[in-house]
Each structure stands twice: as structure tokens, then as C-alpha cells.
């Protein structure tokens, strides 16, 4: 297995406040990792820094993607390399139909990779089909991006986009929050369907319940900007049973 993503001693923050205090993490192709941790531990910051949100500052360290440091790249260049972020709070883009948005995005990605634009008709039928399956109604693709979508529909829309854009590395930032159990299972199903030896996932979550359906290879606990414990799926189970306090006590000890 070769490393797809290597994060080395990453220190980053926002407005001069350091939030990530030296993260080290390697994710191989084909793996799914989960990052858990209490509020404020830096989980979302890690997601934003990987995707390149301009408000965040990187003080030290590297994020290698397929061996190349991506920290100097623009967000769209990272996306073009195959990095996808499912947002914790997806925004609304009024008046821009979801179908047009997705087609534009996919064609931008394809152009950057030297590929032909996608065939309009087959893209339309695929998008309709997936929208029906994932969001429950195909007519949403003609509405503005997330315009009038409920919180749950926005999360499902992130999964729809991930399926259509087919990234190599997907970071899912609290994709499970605000979803009922059926929606959660559906999201997990689509993640599982996409898993293959070339692709990797990083799931950021507070809760064990999505992991039960996805079963990640590795689980990391983030606390105060550092990974304080890594393990397999059983670590998530342990946190579920005993809470974070137990773990943090043992870290401090």
C-alpha cells in the first residue's frame, strides 16, 4: 500500500491563534480513517487546511498528496488533483441550478486533467438517478444549489456531489450530524460503494454511530490540536462506551 496523504508536523490556525499543534498522519490508498474528538479539538480546522481555506494560516509542516506538498496550491488546484471536502455547513448559491453547478465543476476538474468535457446527456441521466436515490427527488437538480434545502438535504447533497466528482481523497466533515438513522445508513452505503484500492476517506465525526456502518481501518483521537491516540475500529467503540474523559485522563497520566 502506498501513502496517498501524509501530514507531517502540521501546525496551523486562524487569526493568529494556533489550533493544530503538530499533526502527523498517513493515509494509504484504499483506507478509510476516522478522526474523533471533543468540540474545539481542531477537527474542522484540519479539514479546512487540507482543502486550502484562505482564512487559515499554516505555520509549519507539510501536507503531501501523492508525494507532493499541496499547501502552496490554490483550493481549486487541490480539488483538481482529486481532493474533495464534504462541508459541515454547505452554503447556498441562489439561482445557480445544482445541475449546472455540478457540470461546471466536473468539467473544470476534467479540463485540468486534460480530459474532454463530460457528455451532457449521460451526465444528466446519471445526476438525476443519483439525486433521486440520495436526496429523494430528482427535481432538486434544477433548483439553486442548496436553495431551500433542509440541513439533512444539504448533507445528502454533499454525498451526491462526491459521487459525481469521484475524488481520490474525500474528507467528510461531520457528514453524520443532523441525519436520522435512515439517512445515515444511506450515506454510509454510498461511502462504502465508493471504497476501492485507489481511493481514501477521512471521516470527521463526534459520534460512533456512522463508524458502525462504515467500519474504518483506523481511528484517531484529536485533542487540543494533536492526535493523542490512534487505533483500529475498537478505539471508536471504547470511546463510545467510556467517553473522551477516560481517554484524556489516560493521555495526561
Amino acid at each position, binding site marked *: 500500500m502506498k501513502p496517498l496523504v501524509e501530514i507531517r508536523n502540521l501546525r496551523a490556525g486562524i487569526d493568529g491563534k494556533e489550533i493544530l499543534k503538530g499533526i502527523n498522519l498517513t493515509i494509504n490508498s484504499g483506507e478509510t480513517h476516522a478522526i474523533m474528538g471533543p468540540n474545539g479539538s481542531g477537527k474542522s480546522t484540519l479539514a479546512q487546511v487540507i*482543502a*486550502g*481555506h*484562505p*482564512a487559515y494560516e499554516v505555520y509549519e509542516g507539510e501536507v503531501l498528496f501523492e508525494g507532493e506538498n499541496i499547501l502552496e496550491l*490554490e*483550493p*481549486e488546484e*487541490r*480539488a*483538481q488533483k482529486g481532493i*474533495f*471536502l464534504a*462541508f459541515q455547513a*454547505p*452554503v*447556498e*448559491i*441562489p*439561482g*445557480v441550478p445544482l445541475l*449546472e*453547478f455540478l457540470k*461546471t*465543476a*466536473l468539467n*473544470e*476538474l476534467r479540463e*485540468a486533467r486534460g480530459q474532454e468535457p463530460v457528455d451532457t446527456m449521460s451526465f444528466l441521466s446519471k445526476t438525476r438517478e443519483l439525486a433521486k436515490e440520495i436526496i429523494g427527488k430528482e427535481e432538486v437538480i434544477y433548483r*439553486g444549489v442548496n436553495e431551500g434545502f433542509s440541513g439533512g438535504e444539504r448533507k445528502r447533497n454533499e454525498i451526491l*456531489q462526491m459521487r459525481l*466528482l469521484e475524488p481520490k481523497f474525500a474528507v467528510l466533515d461531520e457528514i453524520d450530524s443532523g441525519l436520522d438513522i435512515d439517512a445515515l445508513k444511506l450515506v454510509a452505503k454510498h461511502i462504502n460503494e465508493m471504497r476501492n484500492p485507489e481511493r481514501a476517506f477521512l471521516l470527521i465525526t463526534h459520534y460512533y454511530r456512522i463508524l458502525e456502518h462504515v467500519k474504518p481501518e483506523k481511528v484517531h483521537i484529536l485533542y487540543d490540536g494533536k492526535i493523542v491516540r490512534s487505533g483500529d475500529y475498537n478505539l471508536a467503540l471504547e470511546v463510545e462506551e467510556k467517553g473522551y474523559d477516560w481517554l484524556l485522563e489516560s493521555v495526561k497520566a
Partner: protein
Amino acid sequence: MPEEVQKEIEEVLSRDYEWGFVAPIEEEVAPPGINEDIIRYISEKKEEPEWMLEWRLKAYRIWKSMWERGEEPHWAYAHYPPIDYQSISYYAAPKKRPKYGSLEEVDPEIRRMFEKLGIPLEEQKALAGVAVDAVLDSVSVATTYRKKLEEMGIIFMSISEAIREHPDLVKKYLGTVVPPGDNFFAALNAAVFSDGTFVYVPPGVKCPIELSTYFRINAARTGQFERTLIVADKNSYVSYLEGCTAPMRDEHQLHAAVVELIALDGAEIKYSTVQNWWTGDEEGRGGIYNFVTKRGLCAGKNSRIMWVQVEVGSVITWKYPSTILKGDNSVSEFYSVAITNKRQQADTGTKMIHIGKNTRSRIVSKGISAGYGNNTYRGMVKILPSAENARNYTQCDSMLIGNNCGAHTVPSIEVRNPTAVSEHEATTSRIGEDILFYCRQRGLDEEKAIELIISGFAKEVLRQLPMEFAVEARKLLSISLEGSVG
């Protein structure tokens, strides 16, 4: 027009019409200043008949008394130093062209925009004022079209030509919708107008082409006091497009145009504008002052007037394309997208004056403010007692980019007939870093992302534009906002 209607119109409109300007002058010909001799000089240069000179002189006297009474309007949401009208030169011979030997001498900023808009090389040269050897395709195309139009009885020529060749038509309609005394700037324009366009479409004729799409290079040469008169006779149709997406620079800072549209029974006029005059530098220095009076008269039953405007340029815009819905069952629509960036100030909107029965109007205004720009929607819907069952719908949306710009909405609705209905909706939104980052995370660069967001916001307006201009206009919107986000 019957006198009482004319009075009513004047009463409704004149008090609100005001503006202001400023003007450094770099060029030539007529000595600076305005007086009766200058008016005579202009009229003589243009070889006008006596009646036209009298018309101008009358307008000048109106303007002069307005000026003496201090009636230059200052109510718009725009700030600029006082204008010295005696320092402006009011007549310049057709501009000496070319100014440049090759395209390389033209401001790189302008060339970059030409390229982004995808304007053909030969047209770029003509627009920028570079010497062109080859005969421009569009010129010969224009000649061909003009012949075809003549065969159909359509008159389409400069207003100076029309004054000489079709004096009866011009006399009958000139100043009937925007009388010289309408407002300070309309009076100034009536006194000194340089040139403009005249269109007459005879009864039952549908003009087969978009007037002036092939005409855009000529449009680049329009003067600072332009005058346009379009008359659509019974059951005729015409679509006219003014302006151009390419950036226009001009040595004259003060522009005061007048446009009059007249639609008789069953006639339809569509008037589209793409305005991209020089905005000035980051501090707004040198930008054009664009003070325009545009008004249409739905004179006949079942007539229809549509205004579509994409306002991107000028440092100060004062412009309210309006319609008087006089004929029963007449319809008017106003679609506008206005951008203010850098130090631009735009005070723009419309007036819909309902007089006839069952008249309907629809207003869709989209204002986008960025940089230190200020964008004001100023609208008036007036439903007179005679307007049984009149309907109006107004939608007025503002988008803010950054924290230093402003959006203002000044609607006025007056309904004097109990059977009438007027609806008004307004929203304000913001393009922030987060929405932009979302798009970029999906693979769109900043320019594409802005183009997409803005075209979504302005969709209802852009889709009213003639097809070939809609694409350019969409690009133009995103280019003019480049670098303003994040």
C-alpha cells in the same frame, strides 16, 4: 398628446428628475462655455433647419433659467464636486481617429478585457481607436442591412440625418416624451445634443434584426450628449441595443443622454443597454458621469415597452428608464443589473406611471456592490385614478461583496385607484469568502466562481438580453468584479 396628460406627466416626473456632474475637458473645437452663440454654432455645424435651431434655443433658455434658479438636482445618492458648466466644451467635430498606430499602444488593461470578452481582433482595433487597413466586415454588413431595412420602410439613421431627411417625423415626436423642460439635464441635452439615433418602424412591420448589434463599433463613437428617438407605429416591433461590452473611454467626463421611445397601438419596443464606460481608477478619478433621461410612452392600446439594462461602467450613474403606460392594456417591463465596484456610485431604477386601464408593469432590479461602491435602487410606481385594474410587480435584490460597499433601496409606490394591485419584494445577500471557497473546493477558479454566482443572481435580467450579448454580458459582470472578493 393631450395637454392634460402632458401636464400630468410633467407634474409626476419633473420634480423627481435631477442630477449633477463635473467635467474637466481636454479637447478642442468649440470654446468652453454655453451661451446662445454656441447653440447657433452647433446647429450651423450640423446644417440644421431653422426650426431645429429654435427648438434648441428654447431648450437652452429653459436650462439657463433652471441653472440661475439653482435647480440642478442633488438628491441622488452620489457625491461629486460641483460641475462648472462654463468650463465644458459643447461641440467637438467627429473625433479624430485613429489615436494609435497599433494595438500594442493601447492600455494593457483594456486589451486584457478585450481578450477576455473574446472580441475579434479587427473590432478591438476599431473600438480602441487603432488605424485599421482592412474595411471592417461590420461596415459592409451595416450597409447591406440598411438597404434591406429601407425596403421594409424602416428608417434607421443618425438623428442629424433624420432632422434633414425626415423633418416631419422628427418634429412630430421629438421632445414629446421627454420635453426639454423635463429636468435640468434633459434641458441641457436638448440644447446641445451632439448626435444619436432615429428609428421609425412603419405600421405592421416587424424589424427582422436586432438593431445595432452589428452596429456596435459605430456605437463606440457616440458623443457625450446623445439623443435617441424610436417610434414604433401601429402593430410594429423593434428591438434596439445600445452600447457595448467593451470598455469605453472618453475624454469627456460629463455624459447626459436622452432617449425617447414611442409605441403606438399594438406596437412593441425592446430597448437593451450594455453600459461599460470608464469607471475611473481605484479612487474613481477620471470616471464618466452618466446622467441619462430615458423614457418610453406606451401611447397606444396593447402597446409594450421593455427596458433591459446591464450597467457596469461609469463612476457616477443617474438613470431611471421609465415608462408611461397611457394606452389601455399596455405593458412595460424593466430588467436591470447594475454593478458598482471601486468608487462607483450608481443611483438607478425606474418609474412606471400607470394611466390606462388594465396596464401592467414588472420591475426586476439586481444591484451588486463591491469595493467602495454604492448602489441605489430608486423606483417609483404610480397608479393614477384612471388606471382601473392596473398591476405592478417589483422585485429588487441587492448583493454585497466585501464590507466597504453599500446597497440602498428607495422605492415609492403611489396607488390612486382602488382596483389596482402593486407588489414589492426585496432581498439583500452577500458573497462571502465561504461561498467562494465552496465553489473553489469543487474545482472552479475564482473568476469562474464569481461568474457563476453573479449569473445566478442576475439570471432573470441576463436572459432578457439578445442571445449573443447575454454571454458577453455574463463575462463582463464577472470581469468587473475580479479581485473584489476575499
